[in-house]
């Protein structure tokens, strides 16, 4: 129970019969920084969605931050999720809330004091370079701006783990690097980071642990590895 994330022989079959994951065994330590790479449709997002129980597994066991994810009671689920900052591949911003409200929502959920919220939200938005877009609604933002709101929301509560599903897919290289530096800094302070990505340059430059998923299986798991998953 010293690991942040542990998976034992995890299988996931979607209701329509797609075998997304086929026997995953993985251990991620507290404070680690892990890239998850692999071709499109390999199962990276599924792998990630199991951790905060957006999807339920078909077989196996998952422990995240001390929770037995599959055995969680209905009312424990929010507890699990509050310790995880998730950056969704498709952002999932609340369409009726503006940038500020979207980020503050995550703090209201944990019943943070108003004062803390008022101080912290602009801080985080500054970090992702969106301080002048606070009043904009999601559909008034560019793709990359929306992605950065999603990043800000994931960071705002200083969660124990950050799970990021292609957080730089819609960002230009320069902004991507800024975000990666941010992640590195956060990681340095002890936060575990799991990040699915297609960005070869980032993976190859910022050498970290790399987990390669292909066809629902882990085909490589290497510390300080590179992107390429071709044998």
């Amino acid at each position, binding site marked *: 129970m010293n690991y942040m994330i542990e998976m034992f022989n995890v299988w996931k079959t979607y209701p329509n019969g797609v075998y997304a994951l086929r026997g995953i065994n993985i251990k991620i330590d507290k404070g680690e920084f892990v890239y998850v790479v692999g071709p499109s449709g390999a199962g990276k997002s599924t792998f990630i969605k199991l951790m905060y129980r*957006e999807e339920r597994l078909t077989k196996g066991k998952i422990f995240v931050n001390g929770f037995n994810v599959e055995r969680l009671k209905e009312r424990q689920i929010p507890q699990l999720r509050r310790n995880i900052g998730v950056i*969704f591949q498709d952002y999932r911003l*609340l369409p*009726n809330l503006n940038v500020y409200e979207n980020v503050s929502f995550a703090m209201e*959920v944990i*019943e943070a004091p108003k004062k803390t919220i008022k101080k912290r939200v602009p801080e985080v938005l500054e970090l992702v370079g969106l301080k002048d877009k606070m009043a904009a609604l999601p559909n008034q933002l560019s793709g990359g701006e929306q992605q950065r709101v999603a990043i800000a*929301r994931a960071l705002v509560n200083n969660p124990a783990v950050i799970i990021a599903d292609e957080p730089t897919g819609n960002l230009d290289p320069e902004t991507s690097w800024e975000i990666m530096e941010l992640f590195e800094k956060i990681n340095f302070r002890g936060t575990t980071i799991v990040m699915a990505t297609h960005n070869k340059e980032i993976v190859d430059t910022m050498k970290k642990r790399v987990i390669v998923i292909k066809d629902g299986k882990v085909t490589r798991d290497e510390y300080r590895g590179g992107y390429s998953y071709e044998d």
Partner: protein
Amino acid sequence: MRIRTFGRHLKEGTKNIVRNGWMTFAAVSAVTVTLLILGVFLVLAMNINHIAEVIENQVEITVELDLSIEESQISPIEDQIRNIDGVKSVVFVSKEEGLEQLKERFGEDAYLLEGLEEENPLNDIFIVKAYKPENIDYIAKEITKIDLVTGVDYGKTTVDKLFAVTRWIRHIGLIFVVGLSFTAMFLIANTIKITIYARKREIEIMKLVGATNWFIRWPFFVEGTLLGILGSLVPIVLIVFGYEFLLEKLNSNLTLSFFQLLPLYPLAYQISILLVSIGVFIGVWGSMMSVHRFLKI
């Protein structure tokens, strides 16, 4: 839940009413229209019931006394009748008064009755009224048992018919009111469900970000309450003023003044409270029901 969180839910719920502008409008107008129909029908049903009651209360029992009766024997009989359960009033009509009334009723043809005064063939009678029309039958039977009473009549067949009609009208009214109430509930809940369905994804996102079920429900609770209140305002105003107008019109129209409608008060209060309660109840219930469906993630 901390107080500041409660404040937040109140604020969010109110804001959502504005944020979902078009949807709110659609839901509120569905509530409005449905409650309007329901309210109008309630007023109608209450008045039909009232009119039926008035008509039923006009039923009276005619008690014929023996021709040979002495004046001193009348008062004890009256007391006996009065003592029967459910008797409201007893009025004595002497044979002379009876003949006068008969002549009046004959009108032009009264000359047919001339000459009857000398040897009045009528009986002295009591006119008995009951508190509850349904007790008429029982009271009539009790009166029959009294000495010197030679006949008891309340037009049994006609009254039975009348009661059958009023009962049917009441039943139909009740069926309509109950049917309409369920319909109103269904339609409003249905509309709210659809508007919330459009926010399915929102609710899912909230859950994924770590919100508890109640954290998500509360603003919807507030929203549902407001929806109900907003939706019942127009119907209440329309019905109360419309009814007042109708009453005035009826009172000023002499041919129709026999329509004995219920007075504006307390009807106005009853309807208002009823409509707001129904609106709020269904608003909250509909919201809670539909949010529930999407919390399972």
